[in-house]
């Protein structure tokens, strides 16, 4: 209803509701109108027959602007210059809205609605509309609840990129500059919580324990988030996507990554990149030539461990699908530092695929590969935030289209039937065959033997629910911690006794190498450091994560006051079990990384390499 003042009502009720001239005779010929502009309003008294033009003159003087900047709106109707107040039925006390146009015109909305289908669920987090003009991932649904503005908009029609690209960087920049968003993105704990609480993410984590690894790895998370905050990187990614999707021939040299803008790029990135390159060339020089994808596809099948026959992958279809994959980049994959340096051809196939594909996790690839050799595993709907976060900690892996993924998910669901929540140990304990196959797939002959031997005993010793319940009891966790400490002490004082307590050690997360049961194993036991690396940290990280959880359960907040050796005892044990024999180096690394086991491992490895 229009703003009608009491006076006007009375006038209307006086018997001349629609006769404006009668109103005029009753009231004065002057009308008091309220001119409302965003932020303020002002009364103006003008004659009834004032034309809009005259009114605008008055207003422009008052608001100190040009006349052509003024737009008058009444009851949703634009007031033209030749209209008069009386003509438009503007009575006393009515409100006229005023918009003062800016001199340079307004900024179009980031998402020009005509370019996007309405009500499409993938617009939920659509902020970087122009970011992914080339993204073709079909029906990828962005469901990450995080308010990060960073999602790549799927299904952006190529045709309409111009507008979007022009508008989006500004908007992106604006959004990223928003300090609250920056803060949100830099809070890794919060982000991690967000991500892990998301139901789809949890589902992913159930099916793929590697994802939890990634989330636990604070460095990856931090780097990813930093990446996400940096718009320059995103722009480079866009360019890379374009180049990657134009791949028609195998590329032995990677497309330019534009690593310049990545702050804090460490040697690991370059190194793993170099390794990656070597792997790729090696692999390509095998029997496969031609399209890089055929190489991968053909190469993948013979690598399968599963004995069950699998239908040959529809390579054509996949090749078609692959170029359409969103390609947020090798950057993410490599930056974890533990990647790609693997000699096994299967790995290489996986890693090689990264050049044109997005990231998923190694575990996922293994899982799917085991269960459905055909399936090209990938991260679902590479919700690009999840992309960012879902770096392969130990490996780069594959991505694929959504449909493929659905199949894989179903298959993996069938095989991993139990509900898996929380830690990866549960997954492995529930699916011993899966775990064994994972070990096999990772082609770690020494350790896989050990795992297979110890798995049944471990399973016998621990029942899942009991374990969980007892872990929940703080006293129990404290007791376990005490045992751990005792064992560590034992290890340092009387290593000869270790074989006697080996089963308990294993149950609590130690993984003594079969070749040497002493804690101070030399790095030489890792004669193939490349292959060993991903296995060790991965396996131990899993138990390390359990231990760390125990640790946090039982430890008082005064941990920081204790000597570093005491408060890092958990991590020290893990490191020792993994083969980092140098007690002091371990301690130093842990201190430097503030108790972050995985970061310490990387530190130690790096120092070992040089």
């Amino acid at each position, binding site marked *: 209803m229009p703003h009608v003042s009491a006076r006007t009502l009375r006038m209307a009720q006086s018997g001349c509701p629609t006769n404006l001239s009668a109103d005029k005779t009753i009231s004065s010929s002057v009308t008091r109108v309220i001119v409302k502009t*965003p932020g303020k309003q002002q009364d103006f008294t003008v004659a009834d027959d004032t034309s809009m033009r005259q009114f605008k003159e008055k207003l422009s003087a008052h608001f100190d602007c040009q006349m052509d900047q003024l737009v008058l709106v009444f009851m949703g109707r634009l007031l033209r210059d030749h209209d008069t107040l009386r003509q438009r039925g503007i009575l006393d006390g009515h409100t006229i809205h005023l918009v003062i146009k800016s001199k340079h015109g307004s900024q179009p909305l980031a998402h020009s609605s005509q370019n996007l289908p309405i009500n499409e669920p993938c617009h939920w987090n659509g902020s970087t509309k122009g970011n992914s003009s080339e993204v073709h991932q079909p029906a990828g649904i962005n469901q990450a609840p995080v308010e990060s503005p960073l999602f790549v908009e799927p299904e952006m029609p190529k045709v309409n990129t111009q507008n979007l690209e022009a508008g989006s960087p500004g908007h992106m920049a604006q959004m990223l500059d928003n300090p609250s968003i920056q803060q949100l993105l830099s809070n890794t704990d919060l982000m991690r919580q967000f991500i892990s609480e998301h139901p789809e993410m949890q589902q992913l984590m159930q099916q793929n324990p590697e994802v939890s690894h990634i989330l636990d790895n604070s460095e990856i998370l931090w780097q990813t988030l930093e990446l996400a905050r940096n718009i320059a990187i995103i722009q480079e990614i866009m360019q890379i996507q374009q180049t990657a999707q134009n791949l028609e021939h195998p590329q032995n040299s990677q497309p330019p990554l534009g690593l310049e803008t990545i702050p804090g790029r460490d040697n690991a990135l370059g190194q793993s990149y170099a390794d990656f390159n070597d792997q790729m060339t090696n692999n390509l020089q095998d029997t496969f030539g031609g399209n890089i994808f055929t190489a991968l596809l053909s190469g993948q099948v013979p690598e399968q461990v599963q004995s069950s026959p699998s239908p040959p992958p529809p390579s054509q279809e996949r090749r078609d699908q692959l170029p359409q994959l969103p390609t947020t980049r090798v950057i993410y994959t490599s930056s974890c530092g533990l990647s790609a340096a693997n000699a096994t051809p299967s790995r290489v196939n996986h890693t090689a695929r990264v050049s044109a594909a997005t990231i998923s996790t190694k575990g996922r690839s293994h899982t799917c590969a085991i269960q459905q050799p055909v399936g090209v595993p990938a991260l679902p709907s590479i919700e690009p935030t999840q992309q960012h976060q879902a770096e392969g900690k130990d490996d780069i892996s594959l991505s694929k289209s959504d449909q493929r993924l659905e199949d894989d998910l179903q298959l993996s669901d069938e095989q991993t039937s139990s509900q898996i929540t929380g830690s990866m140990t549960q997954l492995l304990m529930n699916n011993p065959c899966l775990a064994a196959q994972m070990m096999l797939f990772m082609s770690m002959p020494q350790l896989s033997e050990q795992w297979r031997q110890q798995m049944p005993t471990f399973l016998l010793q621990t029942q899942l629910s009991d374990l969980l319940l007892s872990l929940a009891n703080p006293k129990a966790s404290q007791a376990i911690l005490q045992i751990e400490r005792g064992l560590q002490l034992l290890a340092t004082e009387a290593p000869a006794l270790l074989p006697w307590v080996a089963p308990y050690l294993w149950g609590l997360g130690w993984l003594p190498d079969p070749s040497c049961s002493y804690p101070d194993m030399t790095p030489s036991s890792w004669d193939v450091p490349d292959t060993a690396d991903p296995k060790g940290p991965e396996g131990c990280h899993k138990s390390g994560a359990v231990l760390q959880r125990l640790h946090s359960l039982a430890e008082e907040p005064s941990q920081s006051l204790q000597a570093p050796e005491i408060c890092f005892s958990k991590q020290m044990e893990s490191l020792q079990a993994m083969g980092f024999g140098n007690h002091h180096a371990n301690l130093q690394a842990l201190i430097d990384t503030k108790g972050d086991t995985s970061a310490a491992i990387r530190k130690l490895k790096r120092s070992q390499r040089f």
Partner: protein
Amino acid sequence: MEPPNLYPVKLYVYDLSKGLARRLSPIMLGKQLEGIWHTSIVVHKDEFFFGSGGISSCPPGGTLLGPPDSVVDVGSTEVTEEIFLEYLSSLGESLFRGEAYNLFEHNCNTFSNEVAQFLTGRKIPSYITDLPSEVLSTPFGQALRPLLDSIQIQPPGGNTVGRPNGQS
């Protein structure tokens, strides 16, 4: 002169409680509330709403809330998209900055009401704008007021509407 274009203006109404308010309000508040309403204005094929992050826009139904629970026809407007965006920009700089958000006094419905009046001269239905006072008139609402005051609602899925150039 050709007749000017008329653009329809709709009000999208969302129940933030997803039905819980209707069921629990008699018990908790002592009076019946049909919902906790969040509204947005849809015009020119875009949805505009106000939250703790300022004025945002998205494709209609494009926030995390999904499709609206009801749609109210506000009327139609001659205001073009360009003028409307200008208007929103200046609103966002003056009256509807993100920090101005207050769940009771200055919320999304305040914004929708303001914009609806600008576009069509009509207000939005009163059951929506009366909600805060309805809640505050109950002892429960009064008791929880400090807590509720600090709540900031920002449905995810929108882009901020603004003038990055910083022009006046």
